[in-house]
């Protein structure tokens, strides 16, 4: 059996949790002393772009110019009283082959402000909560709040988007700040994601006819910003397990997967220069799936370095360098090619990207982003467990995209 950290907290069925949440909110709304219009906040965004990937099915199968770069979202937050708040966000996403197109409930939660003082804040969140542990994980679908149209795939792999973006369960955020130590944030979450058939196709491919389930995952992170400093440093850890139940007639077999992911990050924000980096190690264990008794335990490693320079108040340029190796002991992919009998090319063992981007603010709530990526390798192409060397026949491929966005 695969081993993984197991905690006592168990997430409850989401629809049942939703009912509980509604009853809870209704009770508080009815008993609220007064309804203040400032207690309700509504925000949203719309973004549309064009995107093109050469020599790859990253966006679409025929590698044609695509409009599949749509992101729409609306959220609402209502302060029930001094201690409780409800919030939810619905989004519609279309990213071509990157993840399945359609509407989603991004988050829907009840916040309990358990403790607050001048220096401390302790908040608990129940319901569907977003992953808040990596630098851009909670804003990966928010076009104007992420650094680029395509964010670093080495960390924010689109194929795992629906599992990594959050889950149904609970989260805690503990914040401290003073003039001596600066700002410290500790985050913890526990939950699971329901994986639809279409999401499953993106993760494990259409030839796998069985059911993929996400068991519990546990995530924790800590961030520290020294007093009056432009630097911010962070550490995070994720432990998750998945189970695949084969169909009666299937190309694959019952299996368990373990995915563990550890990151260290740094962020610098100056007047003209910004800098960010995340480096990570991941452990991906496969037991079964390809055939009964199959076992693979890979340690992957990667990082990205990113810098932005503000040319004018409205215009900035962005540069990023990313590297990822699916197996740190097989960086050039020779073992992968050998184990697959030559069916999988060696470049599916890594993913590298060098990108340049430009961002122009057309107003306080309008922005135009454009970027070009020089990609290398196929280790961050979906489906990850069934590489497609025919659609991705070249080691080097390119992506460019332009996106216009509005938010309120």
């Amino acid at each position, binding site marked *: 059996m695969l081993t993984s950290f197991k905690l006592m907290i168990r997430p409850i069925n989401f629809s049942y949790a939703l009912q509980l949440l509604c009853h809870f909110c209704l009770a508080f709304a009815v008993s609220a002393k007064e309804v*203040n219009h*400032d207690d309700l*906040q509504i*925000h949203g*965004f719309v973004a549309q772009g064009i995107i093109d990937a050469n020599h790859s099915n990253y966006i679409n199968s025929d590698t044609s110019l695509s409009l599949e770069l749509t992101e729409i*979202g609306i*959220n609402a*937050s209502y*302060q029930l009283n*001094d201690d409780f*708040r409800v*919030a*939810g*966000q619905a989004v519609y996403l279309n990213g071509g082959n990157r993840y399945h197109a359609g509407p989603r409930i*991004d*988050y829907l*939660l009840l*916040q309990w*402000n358990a403790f*607050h003082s*001048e220096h401390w*804040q302790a*908040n608990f*969140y129940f319901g569907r*909560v*977003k992953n*808040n542990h990596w630098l851009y994980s*909670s*804003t990966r679908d*928010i076009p*104007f*709040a992420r650094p680029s149209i395509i964010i670093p795939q080495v960390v924010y792999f689109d194929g795992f988007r629906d599992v990594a973006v959050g889950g149904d369960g609970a989260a805690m*955020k503990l*914040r401290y*700040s*003073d*003039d001596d130590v600066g*700002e410290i944030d500790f985050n913890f979450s526990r939950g699971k994601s329901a994986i639809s058939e279409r999401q499953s196709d993106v993760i494990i491919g259409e030839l796998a006819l069985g059911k993929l389930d996400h068991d519990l995952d546990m995530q924790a992170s800590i961030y520290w910003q020294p007093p*009056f400093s432009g630097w911010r440093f962070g550490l995070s850890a994720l432990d998750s397990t998945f189970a695949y139940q084969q169909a009666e007639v299937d190309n694959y077999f019952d299996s368990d997967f373990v995915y563990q992911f550890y990151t260290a990050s740094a962020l610098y*924000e*100056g*007047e003209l220069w910004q800098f960010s980096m995340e480096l990570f190690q991941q452990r991906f264990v496969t037991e079964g799936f390809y055939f009964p008794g199959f076992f693979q335990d890979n340690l992957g490693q990667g990082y990205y370095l990113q810098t932005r320079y503000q040319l004018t*108040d409205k215009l900035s340029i962005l540069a990023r360098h990313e590297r990822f190796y699916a197996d740190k002991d097989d960086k050039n992919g020779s073992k992968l090619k050998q184990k697959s009998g030559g069916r999988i090319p060696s470049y599916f063992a890594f993913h590298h990207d060098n990108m340049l981007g430009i961002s*122009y*603010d*057309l*107003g*306080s*709530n309008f922005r*135009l982003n454009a970027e070009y990526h020089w990609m290398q390798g196929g280790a961050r192409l979906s489906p990850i467990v069934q590489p497609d060397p025919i659609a991705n026949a070249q080691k080097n491929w390119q992506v460019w995209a332009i996106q216009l966005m509005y938010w309120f």
Partner: protein
Amino acid sequence: MINNKLLKIVLTVLLLSPPVEAIHLISNVTADTRSLSVSQLRRIYTMRQLYWQNGTPIVIYVLPSQAPLHQQFCKDKLALFPYQLDRIWQKLTFSGYGVAPIQVANQQALLQAVKTTKGAIGYVETLSEVKDVNVIQIDD
């Protein structure tokens, strides 16, 4: 593509924007605090301090991020760049983990909102027509 005419209008408006003369911090009369340190002010605007000392919730009103007064306030009074606050506020708002300040269109609307909202805080450029609010001293 950006229309050249539109670009010229935007640039003209920006160039003709008068410089900010002074910045005064104001609050609703229900806030019991008459002076704040820069650290306290940063904690309030980065959403780390959500209540006044008397327990009243703090409601923050701001101008659009590209308004000269807002930009000057961020740099001079908070020692932060406006985009840093945008990042913090957008992350809270669009991840569900918190709420951001309420944005209003101009200084008149901001003053009116601070006057009429319990626990509100904001900033103005001149005190000459400001009545019925507290003026908060910022201690360096």
